[in-house]
């Protein structure tokens, strides 16, 4: 753009309407930090899709099991390993929900399943309705995920924050305690809980409580260590801000990005941790099943009964992606530096 070529004529200029009172006026409606953050979150399409998907999956996992007339543990070996069949969608070939298995045999016909019995996600090796099991499993995985995230947020942030903020001897002691906790493999801890409390949600929960928050606390500590010697914090301190104000107004908001990102990793981490426990036989005990347990179970027969792994795996993938999209959106929305 060549500005210099342009002739500047007086009629291009107009005298400014200088009103000293107006310059002090705030033209935008006043928004609190959270209102503002929410406004920005709403503008982020990805985050909204993620949020919607999470809400949808949560609601659906609560409703869906009741849409089937079978319970979580209704076995019938005569109808074991049926492929999925959804009446009405049978003609739509690419969906693969016509009750025909990968060898091209209509299992429903072969096993003489009554016409009114249709399994939307097929059945497993014990002839249980996979639809019910997948959604119930989703409930359990979500429970574990939220639990992990909550513990992370409460314990991890507080611990890391205090340790870094007060520093010195306290920091030293607190970090040594963390080292001890990290040093004991959580598998040993879990085995102990399982033997004392019997395997199940409770022992997994306790294992998560004991070891889950450490990663978060270290991240928060690192962030605050680096922030607390920054100029703006020093300035605020010099101006006489209380510790409470320093933490809530300066340190925490600036750490939120990292905290949220860590949380969005904690959630899949927790779900996977449970899946790993299921993989080595220490997870949720049957007949209850989590998504992870269903996947590790179904994955073994992926090549012959793909429906057993594909549905829980897809739901898990959608959940993971949604949590990540939402996490990214929240980070952008909550980061004070983005507030312009």
């Amino acid at each position, binding site marked *: 753009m060549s500005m210099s070529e342009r002739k500047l004529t007086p009629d291009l200029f107009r005298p400014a309407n200088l009103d000293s009172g107006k310059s002090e006026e705030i033209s935008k409606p006043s928004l609190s930090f959270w209102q503002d953050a929410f406004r920005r979150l709403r503008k982020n399409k990805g985050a909204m899709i993620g949020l919607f998907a999470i809400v949808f999956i949560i609601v659906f996992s609560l409703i869906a099991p009741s849409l089937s007339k079978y319970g979580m543990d209704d*076995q019938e070996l005569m109808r074991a390993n049926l492929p999925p069949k959804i009446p009405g969608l049978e003609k739509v070939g690419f969906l693969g929900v016509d009750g025909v298995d990968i060898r091209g045999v209509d299992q429903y016909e072969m096993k003489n399943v009554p016409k009114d019995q249709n399994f939307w996600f097929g059945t497993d090796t*014990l002839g249980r309705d996979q639809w019910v099991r997948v959604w119930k499993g989703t409930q359990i995985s979500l429970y574990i995920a939220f639990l992990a995230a909550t513990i992370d947020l409460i314990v991890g942030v507080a611990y890391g924050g205090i340790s870094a903020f007060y520093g010195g001897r306290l920091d030293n002691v607190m970090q040594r305690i963390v080292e001890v906790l990290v040093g004991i493999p959580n598998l040993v801890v879990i085995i102990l809980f399982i033997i004392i409390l019997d395997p199940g949600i409770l022992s997994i929960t306790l294992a998560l409580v004991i070891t889950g928050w450490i990663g978060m606390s270290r991240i928060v500590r690192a962030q605050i260590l680096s922030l607390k010697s920054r100029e703006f914090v020093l300035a605020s301190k010099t101006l006489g801000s209380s510790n409470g104000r320093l933490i809530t107004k300066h340190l925490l908001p600036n750490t939120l990005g990292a905290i949220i990102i860590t949380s969005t990793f904690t959630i899949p981490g927790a779900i996977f941790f449970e899946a790993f426990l299921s993989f080595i*036989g220490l997870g949720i005990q049957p007949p209850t099943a989590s998504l992870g347990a269903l996947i590790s179970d179904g994955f*073994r*027969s992926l090549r012959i*009964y793909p429906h057993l792994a594909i549905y829980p795996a897809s739901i898990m993938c959608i959940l993971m992606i949604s949590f990540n999209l939402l996490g990214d959106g929240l980070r952008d929305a909550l980061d004070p530096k983005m507030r312009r």
Partner: protein
Amino acid sequence: MKKSKWSLLLTLVLALSMFLAACSGGEKEKAGDSKDGEGTTSEKPAEPQVLNILDGEEIPSMDSSLATDAVSFEVLNNVMEGLYRLDKDNKPTPGVALSHETNEDGTVYTFKLNPEAKWSDGSQVTAKDFVYSWRKALHPDTLSEYAYIMGPIKNANAIQTDGDPLYGKVEELGVKAVDDTTLEVTLEAPAPYFLGLTGFATFYPQKEEYVKSQADKYALEANTLLYNGPFVLNEWKHNEGWQYKKNDQYWDKENVKLDEINVKIVKDQATMVNLYETGQTDITGLSMEYVDQYKDNEDLYTRGEATVFFLRLNQKSEALKNANIRKAIDMAYDKQSMVDVLLNNGSVPAYYLVPSDLASSPDKEDFRKTNGNFGEYNVEKAKELWAAGLKELGKDSVELELLNYDSDGAKKMGEFFKNQLEKNLPGIKVNIKAQPFKQKLELESKGEYDFSYAGWGPDYQDPMTFLDMFVTDGAHNQMAYSNPEYDKLINDAKKEMDQKKRWEMMLEAEKVLFEDQAISPLYQRGVTGLQKPYVKGLAHHLFGADVSYKWAYIEGKQ
């Protein structure tokens, strides 16, 4: 989606491979040793006699007097040899022994040893080597878990029993080296299965001089061990695998056709199948999920085993003390569909304790054929018995705990079992407690359970290996079962000189056991897997070692 995903993957893989090649060049010479055997010997007229197989575990022990597990037994069976070894039909065939004679009542065996039988260092295997190793196994300091298997030999039990005047006096054992090639063994009572027993690992010879020279390094590595079997261990990489090579000192080497057997440790089922499909292993076992996939494959094999799985019904539990309750439980679940759908591997439903095809009477009649089946799947009758049992107990509901292994297969089984009982027996509630292996055994031996999923395999080819488990306070009873009639039958049978009477007693004992419904048998295990058609002549055994490679060969691979 597919194309772009893979090309990206390819780039990443290539990048990684370049970087790896740069940083670990030192290991190159080891590369591809599993492939070499197939390619390099092709100019020879005969086919390369190399067998590639997998195993699930590392070898826990190569010391024949300490070995306790299936893997050790199998390896020892192929690199060592006892007086006799089992042939393809599970009949004893001469090993180190050339022949044997027995006295009239069958209590003294005199073995003539083969002077051609050599250790892998070229020295002769003598009768002294047997005397040494048998005494060693029984000596209290050796702590051999399997020493009890020497029980039929004179004084063996006394030597093992703490407090007995003979305790620890291994010189009193009924075995004598008359000269280098004559071994005389005296038994407590005639044991028709003794000849087969001499092929068991604990009865293998050990060369005293060598064992002492190696001291505590004996049998820890492939080169701290002397072999006298058809193969030697050429290489043993702990936790990774081992390699057999043909033993050129072996007396019967003309009949050993394989030159090399490569064994790799693989624990993941999908990996095993993938290795089979890429031809890196010639044999693989299959779990239930994969059987359906290979149902029509001609490589699929199914084989019966002599291991029986059953539910221990713990009579410490108030409810299970009631015979009607026990009978009702046994009738209330469908063993046939359990075996067909959940196991799907050639297992057969069991209505008995002593497996079929294990042992036959002096008249060559299979134990199973004579005694037939006990019990059936009958929901109606189960409900009646259950109601009667509850009435006797004065309760209308019962809560029971099923102690289970924590393996996938066992868990499925537990779920099925719980569901069936809760569906068919009104008022029962089954809680499943799955525990890691050792903890499960511990709870079982303490009797802290109601019923538990258990299995038992034979140690020798005789019904007694199953039946003496349930004598009162027997080490493996573990369920507070006690019936004086049963105890008497078993103890008398152990002392009985007349083989026919002994057999009758054992038949009777099993009947008594099932009149009491002391256990609820589940199934007799079968195994299924894939085996390349060019692998021939493998010998499978029902007890002791699972398989012998002595007669195996490769034909038609190329």
